[in-house]
């Protein structure tokens, strides 16, 4: 019972997050991933804290389990080596500025000449051949350009303090996932046709695609004060008995859910309260409405009782917890929500586990994180590695045991 992508070889030119997250997903599903990095620093995320310099924990979380190859593509011999490696690839993934790999003769056109079956995914901010292809793309800049930041600023309104980008690099991670999806689809296509192809994935387009309220943001319809998208993102956070906080997953402003809430609260008098008679009025008098909801929440003593009562209205509730707290919960243990990797200084660090469980496949957690060029000798198609190292074409670090 192997893993779903057993036997698939991925050549990975990606760096930082969007690309590495894509190839991490492929690795987790069982593919062999060979990560190609330039000499010197390699993937720059090897360096920022926390964790050992050269193999930081950020790097470990995304790149554990991938073999590390370090070749200088500025040398013709280096490029030849890598092109040779790409002949044996099922998949190539890159996230350079569009046009970069063409300069190194490692673009899709060149690689697919030698390997027409290759599935070659390019991840970028705005696509390979568009008027914005030359623009750098980072999660916050993409969030800003495609409108997510504006939506967030509007959403948090006056409570925003000094507005800033939020705590997650959505554009990178979602795009990594879309790229993995594209690769898997192309693999299936290859299965029936025998042919590979180029998959061009753009972060800005991804962020539109994953925006469940795009139909509102794009068309700007009149909403009459009703919140968008079931008001899912207007879920209030409320104090709970014993000092914690909980979130209930509905907007009290949305008419549909206001009615359900009033019933489950046993407060149908609120439906006839002139302060709350329309979505617009509920928005205007939201502080008073929240007072009523908060008071009702405080009439419960255990979270379990509260959530059970919410099931009367087909709803649930969530406890506000930290990730560290959550990772120690019974569920986290049952699921294998976290796993450990030993870093290059011998310390065990917790990283996320798998989001899937396959009934007919087994997945292998990543067992190691590689220093720059650690697998050159094992992976590169050459008998002459000492000469290449001496010439600076290939660069191999020894793992330092402390």
């Amino acid at each position: 019972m192997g893993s779903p992508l057993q036997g698939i070889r991925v050549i990975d030119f990606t760096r930082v997050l969007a690309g590495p997250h894509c190839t991490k997903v492929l690795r987790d599903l069982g593919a062999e991933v060979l990560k190609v990095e330039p000499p010197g620093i390699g993937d720059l995320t090897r360096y920022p804290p926390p964790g050992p310099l050269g193999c930081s924990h950020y790097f470990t979380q995304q790149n554990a389990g991938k073999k590390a190859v370090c070749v200088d593509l500025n040398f013709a011999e280096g490029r030849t080596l890598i092109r040779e490696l790409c002949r044996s690839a099922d998949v190539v993934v890159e996230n350079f500025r569009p046009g970069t790999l063409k300069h190194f003769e490692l673009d899709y056109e060149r690689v697919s000449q030698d390997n027409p079956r290759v599935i070659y995914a390019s991840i970028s901010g705005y696509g390979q051949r568009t008027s914005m292809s030359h623009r750098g793309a980072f999660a916050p800049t993409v969030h800003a350009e495609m409108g997510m930041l504006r939506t967030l600023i509007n959403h948090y309104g006056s409570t925003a303090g000094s507005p800033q980008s939020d705590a997650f690099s959505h554009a990178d991670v979602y795009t990594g996932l879309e790229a993995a999806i594209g690769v898997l689809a192309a693999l299936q296509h290859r299965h029936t046709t025998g042919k590979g192809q180029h998959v061009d994935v753009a972060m800005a387009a991804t962020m539109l695609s994953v925006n469940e309220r795009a139909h509102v943001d794009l068309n700007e319809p009149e909403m009459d004060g009703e919140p968008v998208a079931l008001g899912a993102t207007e879920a209030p956070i409320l104090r709970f008995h014993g000092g914690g906080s909980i979130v209930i997953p509905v907007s009290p402003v949305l008419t549909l859910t206001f009615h359900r809430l009033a019933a489950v609260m046993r407060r149908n008098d609120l439906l006839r309260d002139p302060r709350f008679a329309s979505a617009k009025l509920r928005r205007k008098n939201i502080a008073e409405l929240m007072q009523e909801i908060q008071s009702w929440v405080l009439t419960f003593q255990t979270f379990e009782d509260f959530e059970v009562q919410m099931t009367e209205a087909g709803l649930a509730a969530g406890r506000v917890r930290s990730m560290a707290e959550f990772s120690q919960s019974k569920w986290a243990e049952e699921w294998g929500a976290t796993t450990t990797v030993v870093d290059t200084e011998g310390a065990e660090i917790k990283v996320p586990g798998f989001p899937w469980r396959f009934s007919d496949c087994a997945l292998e957690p990543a067992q190691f994180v590689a220093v720059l060029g650690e697998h050159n000798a094992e992976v590169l198609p050459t008998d002459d590695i000492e000469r290449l190292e001496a010439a600076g074409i290939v660069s191999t670090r020894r793992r330092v045991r402390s």
Partner: protein
Amino acid sequence: MAEPLVTTEWDGKLAVIAMQRAPHNLLNAGLMTGLMEAIQGAERDGARAILLRSKLKHFSAGADLSLFEPGDGAGVGGGVKGAGPMGFLESLENCPLPIVAAVHGAALGGGLEVALACDLIVVARSARLGAVEATIGLAPLMGCVPRLVARVGPAKAKEIAMFGRRYDAETFERMGVVNLVVDDDDLERVSLSYAKQLAVGPTIAIGAIKKIANAASREGTTAGDVKQGDALGAVMSSKDMRRGIKAFATTGAGASAAFEGN
């Protein structure tokens, strides 16, 4: 003109009845009569639920000892024969409306007994409750012991009354003496929310539940079942029942009904 010992304020159909006999709401004929009249008045004026609280530092520190002098006890209920302190407590239990007690500070002795005569008790976290009569050589004389037995069983009831200790709110909630413990600062808003949920509920059905529960508590399951049979007619023919069924049929959720208390 002296301040009234008891005030009534309204929040929709919820009558909020507050004791304010300075300094500590010690129960005497005047205070108990005032409470009875407020409750009867609320019922008359269309209340669908009652919230009983104190405007002073404590809920009630106990019975005024003058109550137990000959002649004085008879003053409760405006001198109506057979009233007295137990008559007062029975008037709470016989009132068809649900009564919620909101307790803060001390509810000791007679103060605890007033709370125990209510249907539901919400308590502030720092409140102190106890059947403290034994500390001055008395036994609780206003219905505490049987009502504790009904809630917590004889062993715990005897422990509470014989030792006369003060108890923490959470302990009493855990034992089943009271319903809900909240942070001190939240008592007012939460007890209001709690009582309002009853005030907008199906008043006839709620009144039936009260009767059945009290009968079962006093005289056992069979007596409760008898009361249930008695109440059947009124509940089944109530307009609120028809509203509830209709809401269920149209929206799939009975709780979406807007009850009117008839």
